[in-house]
């Protein structure tokens, strides 16, 4: 082996022996460090994957949804307005959407009931999301009673359970014929929940939205770009989940790095004095401390990131599950698709490995530059 490499390996050997002399302390340090990286990386992976999924799935969402507001609340939309909106130049299609919420008193879950005109849907039958089937413990061809506006229950047969792979959008869905939705909620024939508008040219959407507001001042157009922005904002770094977890993780890491940076133990200072009196240069001592810091920080970074990846993408972020469930009774089960971002992995590396390595070097440099005799006597 070439002499310079041999020198590095010898110093690495010495650094490892030095770490192993304080085995308990360094193992605890490595565990806490890896845990901090694990928590931050889990959160970053989870949030990135959800944001990516929202962007990919909502591509197919309507170009614009038009709601009607009455006294500041969302109110059903007269179908006559759909015709008027359809007549606006640039509007390709207007689809009235009929949907609402159904609280299941037996299981305590909130379902989203939606009308579909799919020709495959049999009369008096419903299609349900996999989350609904799981919560109600029902399967295809079972009968489900739904309580109508008048307190009377209506039996529906489950014709289909929607694919589990679509749970991220359909877990709580109950799809039924428009007439059944109207009968269940006593929804008047001439109203819809809102209108889904498709534009021929998406660049005309702001103009179309302005024309709709001019035509119906009580309407509220929500553009697809706003839907996407909502999800960007929900999972933004300023988001509650991000702030709470990141703040505690970063704070614990700062305390931990500060503890390292504020100085060396008397034993370590004495060790540096002995090394210097044996003929080690200050540069050698710094190299030794650099190796000690690098071994701990790189191992903690790699193991923390690997564990975080397994946690989020193999175990569906089970540690975050309780925080995400909140008070929901019906919770979707989804397998997230990894959306790793090289930029974030690099930032995480520089935020965790570099400060720690620097924090170990600074006190060592101070100790290495003092007189060996004074260092040993201290």
């Amino acid at each position, binding site marked *: 082996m070439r002499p310079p490499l041999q020198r590095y390996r010898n110093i690495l050997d010495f650094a490892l022996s030095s770490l192993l002399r304080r085995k308990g302390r360094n193992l605890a340090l490595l565990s806490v460090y890896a845990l901090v990286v694990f928590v931050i990386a889990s959160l970053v992976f989870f949030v990135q994957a959800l944001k990516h999924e929202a962007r990919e799935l909502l591509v197919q969402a309507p170009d614009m949804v038009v709601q009607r507001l009455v006294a500041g609340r969302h109110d059903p939309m007269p179908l006559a307005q759909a015709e008027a909106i359809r007549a606006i130049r640039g509007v390709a299609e207007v689809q009235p959407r009929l949907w609402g919420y159904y609280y299941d008193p037996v299981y305590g879950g*909130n379902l989203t009931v939606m009308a579909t005109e799919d020709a495959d849907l049999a009369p008096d039958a419903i299609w349900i999301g996999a989350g609904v089937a799981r919560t109600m413990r029902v399967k295809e061809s079972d009968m489900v009673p739904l309580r109508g506006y008048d307190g009377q229950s209506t039996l529906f047969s489950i014709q289909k359970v929607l694919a589990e792979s679509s749970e991220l959008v359909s877990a709580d869905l109950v799809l039924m014929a428009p007439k059944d939705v109207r009968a269940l909620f006593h929804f008047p024939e001439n109203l819809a929940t809102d209108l889904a508008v498709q534009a021929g040219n998406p660049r005309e959407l702001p103009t179309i939205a302005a024309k709709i507001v001019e035509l119906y001042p009580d309407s509220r157009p929500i553009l697809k770009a706003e839907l996407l*922005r909502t999800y960007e904002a929900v999972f933004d770094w300023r988001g509650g989940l991000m702030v709470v977890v990141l703040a505690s993780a970063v704070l614990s890491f700062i305390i931990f790095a500060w503890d390292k940076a504020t100085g060396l133990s008397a034993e370590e200072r004495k060790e540096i004095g002995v090394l210097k009196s044996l003929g080690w240069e200050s540069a050698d001592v710094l190299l030794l401390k650099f190796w000690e810091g690098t071994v701990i920080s790189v191992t903690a970074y790699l193991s923390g990131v690997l564990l975080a990846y397994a946690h989020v993408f193999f175990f569906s972020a089970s540690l975050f599950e309780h925080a995400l469930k909140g008070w929901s009774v019906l919770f979707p089960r989804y397998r997230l698709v990894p959306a790793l971002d090289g930029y974030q992995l690099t930032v995480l590396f520089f935020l965790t490995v570099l400060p720690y390595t620097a924090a170990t070097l600074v006190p060592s440099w101070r100790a290495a530059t003092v007189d060996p005799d004074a260092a040993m006597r201290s």
Partner: protein
Amino acid sequence: MRKSTLCLAVTGALAALFLAMLAHARAEARAGTARRQPSLELVRRLGLTDLCLFTEARYTRHPAMADRHAAFQDHPMALDHFPSGSLLAPPAFPSPHAPPPPAIPKHP
């Protein structure tokens, strides 16, 4: 065996696993396109607007469709009592639901 050999072997193994993780993520992302098809089809067919993440309240189930007086719709201190209220960020300012600019160029 020298300690440094063992240490380099462990670090090398972790680095190899890290590279395998990147390769796995890339492969999964490709497979994810196919796995997403049923969801995309539902979103297109039904005109869905939101992800089903939190089902406890209408403004957490459909944050993009929530009315203007739902929690966090107006200002960040409008706290609500649902735990997911602490997970959802306040909306951007100006609100994404602000009405679009009314200026419409009229044809002469």
